[in-house]
């Protein structure tokens, strides 16, 4: 579905995120300073998950160029940004990733790669297990459910077993093992039209079940709410769940979660260098308002501070319940 159509559907719900923020005296939300530089380096992916807001898949071709990646390195090198968060699609499918990790690991205090795990089964990409280990990359892995049936329903047949096999290999390297310093976090997102539950409770369930059944370990579970956009929006509409889901998000609006939204200290960069307040805005073609500088090639971190964050009704997804961010719930 085209982004204009998505925005029209989100705009015709009779609700308004900006109004909700005004009611709690939180409008407009403004940027503080950049702590997280999040790069979406590839919309290509070996999977085509049903909830994917990027609508990534094997047929996509958008990749961040080496030139843009070099500029990101310059910014990282000459700023106080602590975290570099690399996402996709499947970041491993960008041919510059190996070089980029090697360079970025010199400057980033925290270097995260978001992986679907399954890609690491493929011969071409297997090498990234060692690359991640050698550069002590934090791995943030998608695993929507601890049951094969549920997980495969979202990510495709066989994806769960593939992911479990890779987690076993990562555990052998030390990932997810207490005291190793190698971080393996897992991302849960609901396999259906409902919100994620209590993060701690789900983490306990994941850890217990995955260890008892497969003998695997991980560090932390991040619960991420599915945003009503992209493939997930199409699913909600197709199954007549859209109105109820939006109502649920609105009713669960939490001013504390709105206070802690990650867009305040995150700069999201798309494959072509365009700047956004978050990855969701990126996919809805809602660029950040940072003066005239809308591309990373013209950007310096000082430009970021105290700017109005671009919002729309999908933002209810980040402020519902315990909140949602790329690091999971925003309040315990």
């Amino acid at each position, binding site marked *: 579905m085209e982004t204009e159509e998505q925005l029209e559907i989100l705009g015709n719900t009779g609700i308004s995120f900006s109004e909700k923020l005004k009611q709690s005296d939180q409008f407009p939300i403004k940027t503080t300073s950049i702590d997280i530089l999040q790069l979406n380096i590839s919309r290509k992916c070996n999977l085509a998950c049903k909830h994917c807001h990027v609508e990534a898949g094997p047929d996509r071709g958008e990749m961040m160029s080496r030139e843009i990646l070099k500029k990101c390195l310059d910014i990282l090198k000459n700023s106080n940004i602590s975290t570099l968060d690399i996402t996709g699609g499947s970041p491993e499918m960008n041919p510059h990733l190996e070089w980029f990790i090697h360079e970025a690991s010199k400057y980033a205090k925290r270097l995260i790669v978001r992986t679907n795990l399954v890609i690491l089964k493929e011969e071409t990409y297997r090498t990234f297990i060692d690359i991640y280990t050698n550069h002590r990359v934090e791995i943030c892995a998608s695993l929507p*459910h*601890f*049951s094969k049936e*549920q997980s495969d329903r979202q990510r495709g047949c066989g994806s769960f077993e593939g992911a479990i096999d890779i987690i076993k290999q990562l555990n052998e390297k030390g990932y997810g093992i207490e005291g190793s310093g190698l971080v393996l976090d897992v991302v*849960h997102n*609901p396999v*259906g039209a*409902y*919100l*994620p*539950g*209590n993060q701690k*409770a*789900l983490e*306990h*369930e*994941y850890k217990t079940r995955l260890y008892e059944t497969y003998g695997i370990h991980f560090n932390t579970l991040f619960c991420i709410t599915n945003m009503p956009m992209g493939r997930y929006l199409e699913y909600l509409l197709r199954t007549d769940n859209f109105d*109820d889901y939006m*109502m*649920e998000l609105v*009713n669960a609006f939490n001013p504390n979660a709105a206070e802690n939204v990650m867009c305040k200290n995150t700069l999201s960069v798309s494959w072509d260098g365009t700047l956004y307040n978050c990855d969701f805005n990126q996919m809805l073609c809602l660029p950040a308002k940072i003066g005239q500088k809308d591309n990373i090639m013209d950007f310096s971190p000082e430009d970021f501070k105290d700017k109005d964050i671009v919002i729309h009704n999908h933002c209810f997804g980040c402020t519902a319940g315990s909140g949602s961010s790329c690091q999971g719930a925003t309040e315990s």
Partner: protein
Amino acid sequence: MSDYYEKKDLADFPNIGEYAEAEGEKFFDYYGKATAAGKLSEREKSLIALTVATVQKCPYCIDAYTNKCLSLGVSKEEMMEAVHVGAAMQAGITLAQSTQMRKIIKKKEM
């Protein structure tokens, strides 16, 4: 009849303390504590709540706790097992009433 038990009325639940705010506040405090994780997990308590909801035939609670169970990763099989506990309890409770009936029969019959 269509005005009764509308789905959107579930959103009114936080307002049920209206007209009796002090009591309402006490209820929500109690409700919150009783359903939060304690010796039993939030997951276990949600399954109990779902069972009570189906036994008591409360459409709001069935909606709320089915969603909560899904959110906490409870499988549909686990939820159905819980509903069967409720159904079995109801059947048992009904059959247990026959004790009175049987006692009377035994007293009255020659």
